[in-house]
């Protein structure tokens, strides 16, 4: 029964995404080769980022520094590429930077029992200050060579970018892991009911640190994929990306309190958030309308996922039946 309901939610979300695409295809230039290609190019890092943030949110934590970690990741990739490193060398190095930075967040949060929101908020500032202070030109790199951009520009059948294939593969892998592995169950358990998880023999601290490490790896992948589509890198331009990822995860039905949600939903959420902002651009709104829209989307989506409407109705019925009780 429960399986049926969760299936239904993702199914409906998928239908909404399809309907939205159809609407855009009929009313705008969306259904051309360029429209679809740029969609796949832009949405690939968002899909991976949304999965990364979803994993963290499943455990009841959050990461506000994801955007600035992406900056470090892309800077590392770009700097190594300038030194002549091929992709199989600079990509793992960039992943490692993501893992280390995110692992530090997780370690401080778990070890000292400080809420991850505050740790990552402070880290966000530390990272931004670091770019501006210690990196040459605030970490701005330009004129990156073909050894950097060939993967981002590569495509299959002249329409599907390599990076879209990578992101779909990563998404499929993590959907599989979260659904069938013991680790996936323990992540949900820690976020859902920490005490119950402890009694079930799960070490919540280790699980949370593992999730932060995996999040770092995924952010590494997302940052590298985003960076290789362009021939220049500006670390501070990634600031605020985490809001898009959080919005995508929440729109996809991930419960911000932790413990429930589906990665497939997060993937659809990423598509929907991208389509909404594209639609606004097609309709001629300035891009700063997106900040306002993003805030409203998050609030509405959280409200719908958190509020137990059936309990509401019951409560109202009870109040009507026995007005003197309250």
């Amino acid at each position, binding site marked *: 029964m429960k399986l049926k309901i969760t299936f239904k939610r993702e199914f409906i979300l998928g239908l909404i995404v399809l309907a939205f695409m159809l609407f855009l295809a009929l009313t705008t230039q969306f259904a051309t080769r360029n429209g679809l290609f740029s969609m796949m190019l832009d949405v690939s890092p968002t899909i991976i980022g949304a999965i990364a943030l979803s994993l963290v949110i499943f455990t009841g934590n*959050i990461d506000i520094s994801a955007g600035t970690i992406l900056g470090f990741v892309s800077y590392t990739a770009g700097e190594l590429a300038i030194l002549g490193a091929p992709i199989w060398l600079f990509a793992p190095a960039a992943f490692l930077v993501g893992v280390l930075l995110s692992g530090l967040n997780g370690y401080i949060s778990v070890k000292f029992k400080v809420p991850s*929101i505050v740790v990552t908020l402070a880290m966000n500032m530390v990272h931004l200050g670091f770019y501006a202070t210690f990196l040459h030109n605030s970490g701005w790199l330009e004129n990156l060579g073909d050894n950097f951009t060939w993967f981002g520009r590569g495509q299959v059948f002249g329409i599907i970018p390599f990076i879209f294939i990578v992101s779909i593969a990563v998404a499929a892998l993590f959907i599989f892991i979260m659904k069938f592995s013991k680790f996936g169950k323990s992540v949900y358990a820690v976020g859902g009911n920490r*005490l119950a998880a402890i009694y079930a023999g799960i070490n919540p601290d280790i699980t949370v640190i593992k999730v932060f490490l995996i999040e770092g790896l995924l952010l590494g992948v997302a940052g590298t994929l985003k960076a290789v589509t362009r021939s220049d890198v500006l670390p501070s331009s990634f600031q605020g990306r985490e809001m898009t990822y959080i919005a995508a995860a929440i729109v996809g039905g991930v419960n911000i309190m932790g413990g429930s949600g589906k990665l497939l939903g997060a993937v659809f959420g990423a598509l929907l958030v991208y389509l909404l902002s594209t639609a606004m651009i097609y309709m001629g709104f300035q891009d700063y309308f997106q900040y306002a829209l993003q*805030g409203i989307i998050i609030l509405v989506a959280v*409200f719908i996922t958190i509020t137990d409407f059936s309990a509401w109705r019951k409560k109202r019925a009870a109040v009507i039946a026995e007005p003197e009780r309250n």
Partner: protein
Amino acid sequence: MEQPTSKRQRRGGFRITYQLALFVLLVFLVLLFGILQPVFFAPDVLFNVTTIIGEIGIMALAMTFIITTGGIDLSVGYNLQLCAIVFGSVYASNHNVPLAIILSVACGILCGFLNGMIISRTKIPPLVTTLATMSLFRGISMIIAGTNTYSGFPDSFKKISTTYIFDVIPIQFLYFIAFFAIFNLFYSRGRLGRNLKGIGFNENALIFSGINTKRNLLFIYTLSGLMCAIAALIYLGRLSAATTSMGNDLNLQVVTAVVLGGTSIMGGIGSVSGTFIGVLIIGVLRKGFTLINFSGNIFNFTLGVILIVALVVFAWLEERKKNSGKTSKYVA
């Protein structure tokens, strides 16, 4: 029986020690910057510290209330920005200062009220609510202002934050002291402060003892919005231009000041006088960094590090306090 008593005595002494340590840190920083750059000791430079903390301080007082309940308001920086933009745009359209002030304050209160309504009436956590409204306020202020910069405010308006008492004490310091006195009174003497600490410890217990916690929460978030508007006006009087880049990094400074002052981010424990010293420390750091020619980026970097260190130290002290009577590591 000997040991617990001595432990309790040490714990009893700890509160004073933390505030004292904070004060010692403040004195140390003043001396450090004074030695590095002797001009720091000049009265007008030293009092200039209190000019730059005017807006942070006023917002931090309301933030102390919020963090005491276990909540957080991440939208303060952009709320301030929105209030400033509203003031600027209203003034630009009809050159009416009182109307601009009224609308700006109304905007701040409305933003705070929105936060308060969402947080107290739905189950959305304060963190997510204010993260989303942060994005919302930023978007609205950008929609109103576009790429405009509003400036050219009359001198009569600028006076609200460029007046000096005895030619040396900036008026911001007076505002800060006045608000501090009021907030401290409500926090440590009144029913409101007791309720806020109660919400931070155990909200359900308060609800069951018949206290309307929703109303308290709504009140403090609205209060925070009002304080943002007041801070925006004081900030505008000093900067004399409203742009969409002002207030961007104030969120972290305000939270840092409160956490540094010994208010637990988990709620339940806090002190307004600690926030007072925390704000002063931030002001001294910022002025000192400017004097020894460090950029604002290093200041932000240092602030982030300080916030993390303060959180870790405070969490460690709390943990030590708790461990005195606990058996299991996990079971709360």
